[in-house]
């Protein structure tokens, strides 16, 4: 199985390459990709350097161009496709029908992956992109159970990549407007979930408040670790109860499912986190490289080693990890 690691900067890219990634995924420094944050991502120079660095070490580079352009912004996306093709990236990860249409008609040799932002959770949808745009791989949304992934792979005409570790999107990506509802920008339209300019951290005598677009997302006691205010991970009132109405701020960790994921016929494991530091990328890439290698050597005897689990828990967002939708009771 291929290990696909995030790189939000040149140091992160090098960290991923040096610690065992088979491929890294990166984005331009603008709203053409779904991790558009200040100080993150690549300009033309760093991207060229990064691609050269990865290529010299046998690591593939995928470029995420996975937001949805509107007419006024279209030239920027078109230029981004052209630049990606010129730079010779190993694959373009896209979601929008217009971007796919342009890429296939202008750069027929360019390898295309369907982004998780394309919301393809069933093989009929995947077949659509395969038949019309010749996609070679799909990244599955984090809404499917392991049994559903197994079933889908059997009928899927392309390679399947699944999320293995990192922040957990509880919603079907590509169809989530929670961020734009509260803050005016969404992953689809601007490449941003909870844009930093709309986020507030407010100290109060009883603890910390986090807000998005003015809306109170959560209150943290003095002994609690405050999380970044995403709408899906807030504590709200429903019928007089205050709780995480949508999802606890857990992160996804599927290490223990690795043999089953492999047996299901999954081609690649994706690590989330282009917004994370080079140190984080190094640690996570190292653990997953070792785990995948161990699983390839002896899937039947695979057991996550305690030190892997400890290292991943240490870097996880929040304090808990979950198997997410792969595990039916979670649903």
């Amino acid at each position, binding site marked *: 199985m291929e290990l696909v690691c995030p790189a939000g900067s040149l140091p992160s890219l090098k960290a991923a390459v040096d610690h065992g990634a088979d491929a890294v995924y990166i984005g331009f420094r603008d709203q053409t990709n779904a991790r558009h944050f200040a100080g993150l991502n690549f300009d033309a120079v760093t991207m060229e350097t990064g691609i050269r660095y990865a290529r010299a070490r046998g690591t593939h580079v995928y470029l995420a161009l996975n937001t949805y352009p509107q007419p*006024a912004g279209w030239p920027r996306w078109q230029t981004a496709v052209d630049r990606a093709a010129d730079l010779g990236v190993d694959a373009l990860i896209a979601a929008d029908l217009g971007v796919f249409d342009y890429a296939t008609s202008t750069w027929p040799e360019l390898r295309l992956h369907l982004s998780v932002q394309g919301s393809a959770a069933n093989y009929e949808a995947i077949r659509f992109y395969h038949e019309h745009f010749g996609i070679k791989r799909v990244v599955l949304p984090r809404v499917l159970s392991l049994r559903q992934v197994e079933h889908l792979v059997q009928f899927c005409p392309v390679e399947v990549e699944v999320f293995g570790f990192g922040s957990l999107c509880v919603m079907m990506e590509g169809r989530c407007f929670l961020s734009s509802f509260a803050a005016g920008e969404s992953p689809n339209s601007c490449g941003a979930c909870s844009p930093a300019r709309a986020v507030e951290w407010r100290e109060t005598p009883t603890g910390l408040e986090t807000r998005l677009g003015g809306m109170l997302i959560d209150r943290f006691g003095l002994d609690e670790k405050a999380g970044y205010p995403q709408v899906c991970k807030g504590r709200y009132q429903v019928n007089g109860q205050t709780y995480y109405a949508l999802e606890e701020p857990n992160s996804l960790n599927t290490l223990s499912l690795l043999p089953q994921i492999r047996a299901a016929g999954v081609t690649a494991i994706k690590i989330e986190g282009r917004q994370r530091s080079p140190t984080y990328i190094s640690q996570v890439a190292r653990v997953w490289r070792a785990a995948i290698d161990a699983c390839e050597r002896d899937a039947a005897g695979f057991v996550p080693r305690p030190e892997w689990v400890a290292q991943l828990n240490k870097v996880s967002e929040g304090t808990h990890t979950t198997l997410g939708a792969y595990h039916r009771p979670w649903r």
Partner: protein
Amino acid sequence: MTERIPRLALGAIPYYWSREQIELFYAQVADAPVEIVYIGETVCAKRKEMRTRDWLALGEELAAAGKDVVLSTLVLLEAEADLRTLRRICANGRFMVEANDMGAVRLLQGESFVAGPGINIYNDRALTRLAALGLKRWVFPVELARDTLVALQAIRPAYIETEMFVYGRIPLAYSARCFTARHLNLQKDDCGFCCHAYPDGLLVSSQEGAPFLNLNGIQTQSAQTYNLLTQLPELIELGIDVLRIGPQREHTLEIIEIFDRVRRGEGEPQDFDCMLEGYAPVRACNGYWHDEPGISQHDTYPGMHPALASQDVL
């Protein structure tokens, strides 16, 4: 240019109502001034109060009442059983189908279909591509603003109709989890169809008591109700073909009446807007139209008292 009066459409019921409630509702809709009625289950595959054959039978009744019936489909299709139902609907041979997933588009290509709110059409290249596959009508993405609608109206293929969501709680997100079941500490696999108890969803407020979201099974809606009534003259000028109203448990017929009168020019939008406000379970919002956070309510109409206009805005 002569402006055409847009047709009115009633979107599919997003909530889980009983069969009796559904039948009673559509018996009233049959006499209401909507030309297009979308029917079917769009949110949760587990809801079985109405089977596909029941929706088809209901479609016949509405068609007999002169309605243009469209069968709507699920936004989140995961299991093989979901695809089986989808295939059956797409091959029904009688009514046009609204696709809410690209899997449905694949099954519908080559015949006329509607691209519903679940299909992301953000630019003309996407629209043109689907037009070549048989797209007849598309629903403008709810999170997008006026300027993008203006641009897309100017360059859309001439034979493609544009439909605009103009009233209702906004469908914001879909998940593998059922949030109604979660509220009651039930597992989704053993949910007991608990969303029956919430025919308008389950209100979510901030810890300060500000209404924010509305839980409807695996769907998250806005607590506020999108309302573009005061933009109707502009929408008509932009050549919007169809105006979509989202059903709610109470007052749907009155809401339809208001949009019908305003589209015919039988009264100014602002004369009816306060009435519509009263029909929204929480309050209205229109931020998306103005390129602002969707939750905000922007200058309802020129000349409105500033204190009213800014009321309850976060």
